[in-house]
């Protein structure tokens, strides 16, 4: 006998207020115990589909809804929102805005407290879920101080407290490195083995294929294709490119080494020690490496190694504790480096200040001769000129990121530092960023990238610097002869 249908979406269309139609005549049935992965380009309607399942639509987000959504046999519109919360556990993408409590055990307990569960039962479940998720030692820790992987484990434990039959996740691996992603995959496999139904909206597919029953592909608000994992693996690279999907397998795909791509030395670090604050212990010491003009270098290492602190030190936001950072052969102070470098942070929202795209690009360059012409040229190159009068906050994620690139390039920097530029991007946008980085490097700008994304490393980088245990441990050229070693370093788990 087939398991019963737990989610039945029939001919659903939905349009948020003041927005275009996000879902168009979508139908999807999910049986109990199934794992369904929803993928597709950014803006294709994946998140909206998850909101239908966890009841946020129509109970929280208002808009025009047609068609029917049945959850465990009941019409979602007729069910109390809080009743849906008992049936469906939700894990969201952004850890900053999904945690309600400040302490881990409080966050895991939160759902049970809301549903009036007995305090002793809550305590038992909190302890058991923490044990299963490998976070028992973190129960009294502050949520905001955890690594991304630990936060994701807390989010999953929190969603499981009331033992819902169905778990819905929106890009759960977006901020995770490869080891944390593998741990997430193990946790999901255990949940599926325990009979839970899983619906996961995701760009990264490689870690979900072993447990997925089917992969639903969305485009422009419609379900445009559906594959089994075997069928997805059989798609050609051209087909994946056409669908805008990321590679479903982990592995290097490299051209042979290109000789003479990099130019003269741009920056050299000699015996540098760095710390995140004046009164904090150094996180990296005796750091020695050099960067050349036009070179693209990846920085990798386990979470918490000090990669972002290193990037902030190099660009001058933090002073080095000891040692020398030289540019053009001369020791260069932090405040001087700040003028010559540009740092594109992971979340573009923080880097945009003005009320239009053009003003954003011109900010701090208003008095410079030729700046308006340069801004126009840059915006045209990056496909943003048509949007020049739009408010930056109204742009899509990819457009915001390109605007931050434009802002940085207005400074005519010698070097660009990028922090996880492809996290949360679909295959098409990821490949677009790879091309953009290569194009910028070809103009002689040195590009330093903090990343866990193997597709970015193998697509854009010339060299990989690997940090662990407070030291630079390895420098590996990213070329076919060293691909396996580079892959091993990206996947390294322990700090």
């Amino acid at each position, binding site marked *: 006998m087939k398991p019963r249908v737990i989610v039945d979406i029939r001919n659903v269309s939905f349009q948020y207020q003041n927005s275009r139609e996000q879902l168009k005549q979508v139908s999807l049935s999910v049986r109990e115990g199934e794992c369904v992965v929803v993928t597709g380009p950014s803006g294709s309607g994946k998140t909206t589909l998850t909101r239908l399942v*966890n*009841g*946020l639509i129509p*109970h*929280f*987000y208002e808009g025009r809804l047609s068609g029917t959504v049945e959850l465990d046999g009941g019409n979602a519109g007729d069910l109390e*929102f*809080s009743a*849906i*919360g008992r049936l*469906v556990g*939700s894990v*969201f993408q*952004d850890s*900053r*805005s*999904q*945690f*309600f*409590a*400040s*302490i881990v*055990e*409080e966050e895991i*307990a*939160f*759902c*049970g*407290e*809301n*549903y*009036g*569960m*007995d*305090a002793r039962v*809550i*305590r038992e479940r*909190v302890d058991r879920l923490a044990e299963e998720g490998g976070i028992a030692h973190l129960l*009294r820790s*502050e949520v*905001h101080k955890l690594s991304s992987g630990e936060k994701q484990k807390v989010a999953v434990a*929190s969603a499981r407290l*009331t033992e819902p039959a169905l778990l819905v996740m929106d890009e759960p691996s977006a901020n995770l490195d490869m080891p944390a992603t593998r741990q997430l995959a193990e946790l999901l496999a255990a949940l599926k083995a325990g009979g839970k139904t899983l619906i996961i909206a995701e760009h990264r597919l490689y870690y979900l294929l072993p447990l997925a029953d089917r992969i639903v592909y969305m485009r422009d608000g419609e379900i445009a294709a559906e594959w089994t994992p075997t069928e997805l693996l059989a798609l050609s690279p051209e087909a994946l490119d056409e669908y805008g999907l990321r590679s479903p397998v982990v592995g290097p795909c490299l051209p042979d080494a290109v000789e003479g791509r990099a130019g003269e030395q741009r920056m050299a670090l000699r015996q540098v020690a760095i710390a995140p604050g004046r009164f904090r212990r150094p996180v990296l010491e005796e750091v020695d490496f050099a960067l050349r003009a036009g070179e693209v270098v990846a920085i990798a290492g386990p979470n918490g190694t000090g990669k972002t602190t290193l990037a*902030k030190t190099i*660009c001058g*936001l933090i002073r080095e504790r000891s040692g020398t950072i030289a540019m053009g052969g001369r020791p260069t102070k932090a405040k001087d480096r*700040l003028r010559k470098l*540009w*740092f594109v*942070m992971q*979340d573009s*929202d*923080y*880097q*945009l*200040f003005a009320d239009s795209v053009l003003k954003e690009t011109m*900010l*701090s360059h208003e008095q410079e001769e030729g700046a308006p012409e340069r801004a126009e040229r840059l915006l045209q190159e990056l496909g943003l000129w048509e949007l020049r009068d739009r408010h930056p*906050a109204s742009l899509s994620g990819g457009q915001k990121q390109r605007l931050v690139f434009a*802002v940085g390039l207005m400074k005519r920097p010698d070097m660009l530092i990028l922090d996880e530029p492809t996290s949360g991007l679909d295959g098409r946008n990821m490949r677009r960023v790879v091309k953009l980085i290569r194009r910028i490097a070809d103009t002689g700008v040195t590009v330093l990238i903090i990343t866990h994304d193997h597709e970015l490393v193998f697509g854009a980088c010339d060299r990989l610097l690997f940090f662990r245990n407070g030291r630079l441990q390895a420098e590996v050229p990213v070329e076919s002869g060293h691909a396996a070693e580079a892959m091993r370093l990206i996947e390294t788990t322990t700090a």
Partner: protein
Amino acid sequence: MSRRLGFDPRIQLLVVALTTAASILGELRTFPWLIGAVALYLAAQGIFKPTIYFLLAAACLYAIYVWSPPEPSGLWTVGVFFSLLGLRMLPVLMAAVSLGKAPSGQMISALRAVRLPMGVLIALAVGSRFLPILKLEQEAIQTNAKLRGVSAASPRNWLRPLRTFEYTIVPLLMRSLKIADELAASAATKGIDHPGVKTSLYPVALRRRDIVALLVYAGWLAVVWGYGGWL
């Protein structure tokens, strides 16, 4: 980090209310006694670092107020205005910090016992959780502002106060709106507006220390209020 054991959220809310009344109605010369009492109240709950920062801020504000000329003009006018405003707000902020550290489940459960409307409860719980997130957001925005050369911490931007204010506040507002929306959605999927009885992972009961703390604090305010002139 081990969890701090604070006073019952109902007592904490009453302390905020009493402090707000004292800050609005009290004379400025009594404020050292008020701020000192709230500092002790925080320290008794193991909140040390923020207490030290608050006391330093109070000392700075007092210094501006005391050393200002009798008839201030120019920059002094701005300084005196902000020192007076800051001194009046500081004790309330201090008391609110304590409430903000109460576990959300315990807070909702305790405040439901005094029959506060659910909307008020949720607003209080969300508000208290939102402040620490806002602080992290502000730090991230200021790092980027420094990179763009529009940081409020840079003296050259003090000459363009309106622009600097805009570049400090607007991104924070945009982020706040987004986070508030997502936080509310997340809490809603976890049953925050479930109409039934709420429970708490931690025991919710008024203990002797809660009652003693409230009586001592209220008594102290009465003494300061009555004898503030010569204390």
